[in-house]
């Protein structure tokens, strides 16, 4: 008895010209079109993250060459949790987050609602609040660092003029350096938050407000019962991106204070930079990198969980 030939695969293999069926061709093209992005992502993100995990268990100074990589077990991690500058950086990051996330989100929400339907020249306000976000943060920081000059700067001269004889020394005082940086960041980032809220507001149907008005709702009731709840997903988006962003802050601190004075404005990423690219302690810097990755992972997971329970 002869077995029935499985017809489809053999037929195709026997005829090489038929191998590139349109379907296979499409798959090949699909992968080729994706290839640059996939290779880039794997190499610069996934592989790099894995390699940094490996390095975090070694003690290695870049200057000693590849042969200088020595396995060190948990040494870096143990050292990290006893390192006062890392603890200081964590604390600073937390303070920076508190100053630059909830308050600006609340202010931006109110401003966005006002711009959305309570002012003339809407476009003017959109543009003005947005200008600092679009300008180079470094150039903007240069301007603010002059404005914040402790004795000669216009801000302190103004404060002294209105009777404050000992105004804060801002960037050069350990007590206020991080606050000054947070003010500049919040100022520069507010336009972004407003724009995102404005985009969210255009999605709310005006009928809801009209119905509420018929029921006699006041402006405040409408704000808290309609606007705030319906903007929840926008707020969630802003919260998660701004939380993560606040733990990644680097540029402005590196330019303005280099973490000083006396580590008063140092943050996690600045520690990675200093240990890795100033002191060349690649192993230790990698361990700090993983601390950053863990923090951002936890924030993401926690906020997602919050959102799921919420809805």
């Amino acid at each position: 008895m002869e077995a029935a030939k499985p017809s489809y695969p053999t037929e195709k293999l026997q005829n090489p010209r038929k191998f590139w069926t349109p379907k296979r061709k499409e798959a090949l093209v699909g992968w080729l079109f994706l290839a640059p992005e996939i290779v880039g992502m794997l190499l610069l993100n996934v592989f790099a993250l894995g390699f940094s995990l490996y390095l975090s268990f070694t003690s290695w100074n870049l200057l000693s060459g590849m042969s200088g990589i020595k396995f060190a077990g948990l040494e870096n991690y143990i050292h990290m949790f006893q390192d006062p500058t890392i603890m200081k950086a964590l604390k600073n990051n937390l303070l920076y987050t508190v100053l630059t996330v909830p308050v600006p989100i609340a202010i931006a929400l109110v401003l966005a609602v006002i711009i959305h339907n309570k002012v003339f020249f809407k476009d003017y306000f959109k543009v003005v609040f947005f200008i600092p976000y679009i300008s180079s943060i470094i150039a903007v920081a240069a301007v603010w660092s002059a404005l914040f000059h402790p004795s000669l700067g216009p801000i302190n001269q103004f404060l002294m003029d209105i009777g404050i004889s000992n105004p804060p020394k801002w960037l050069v005082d350990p007590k206020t350096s991080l606050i000054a940086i947070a003010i500049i960041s919040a100022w520069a980032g507010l336009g972004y938050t407003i724009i995102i809220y404005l985009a969210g507001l255009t999605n709310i149907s005006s009928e809801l407000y009209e119905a509420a008005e018929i029921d006699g709702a006041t402006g405040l009731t409408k704000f808290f019962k309609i606007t705030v709840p319906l903007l929840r997903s926008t707020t969630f988006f802003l919260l998660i991106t701004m939380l993560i962003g606040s733990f990644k802050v680097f540029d402005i601190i590196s330019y303005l204070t280099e973490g000083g004075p006396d580590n008063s404005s140092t943050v996690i990423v600045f520690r990675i930079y200093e240990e890795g690219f100033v002191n060349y302690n690649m192993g230790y810097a990698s361990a700090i990198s993983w601390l950053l990755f863990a923090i951002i992972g936890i924030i993401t997971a926690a906020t997602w969980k919050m959102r799921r329970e919420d809805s």
Partner: protein
Amino acid sequence: MLFIRKNFTKIITTILMAVLSIFFLIPFIWMLSSAFKFEKDVMRFPIEWIPKSINVVYNFKAVWMGKVPFIHIYMNSIKVAIIVTFVTLLVSTMAAYSFTKLKFRGRNIVFTALLAFMIIPDQATLIPRFMLIRWLGLYDTHVALILMSMFSIYFTFLLRQFMVGISDEFIEAAKIDGAGHLRTFFSVIVPLCRPVLATVAIIKFIWSWNDYQNPLIFLQTKELYTIPLGMTLFRDDYTTNDAIMMMASLSAIIPLLIVFVVLQKQVINGIALGGVKG
């Protein structure tokens, strides 16, 4: 009169908001006016908003023809930002096309995986990337900067959202006309995406222009610096001359302000695009 009575609160809010908005403009106005001043007048108080004596030529020369190779730095920024924008758009658009219009197994898994990679912060991978660049012999080159910022899941995601809305019939029609995939991509998809590509291009250009961290880590030679890193050279050389610092800041942001004023709709919509979909 009727207009005023009808819109009374709206007029008042507009005025209050206008006052508030000045807070967002004052640092720029101060920068502009200081860039025109003599060093000794910058910190004079009360502030001379319109300088009485003007030193703008000296300040301009100090920035553009002084010790800092500012013309080089400017050209570097233009070059790097244009190349980065172009390459990012190409890579992201190709990926987005593949994700939306080409059918093959594994497509959705790859897309989900890429989205998941977005959680990996750039700074957590800096050290291996630095080693990779050194190993490739690309340390202290502009290629390093381009490589570091040409792959963007964020833009791929935005472009994908847009392409989902393009009807498959356009592609079918191109196929019937005998166009291959490359041809379909460049002469059907890319032109159809022109509005979103323009928006994404502007945003990428601005981000690249403002990038500080990558040049800081991957460049060493002053002549190769881009503007944000170049600003540190002014800070180190002219630490006490605020007039020159303000002229440098002004020079650094003028192209951005021009781009923004001319194309504000696209810039704002582009930024909003990312937020609403999130």
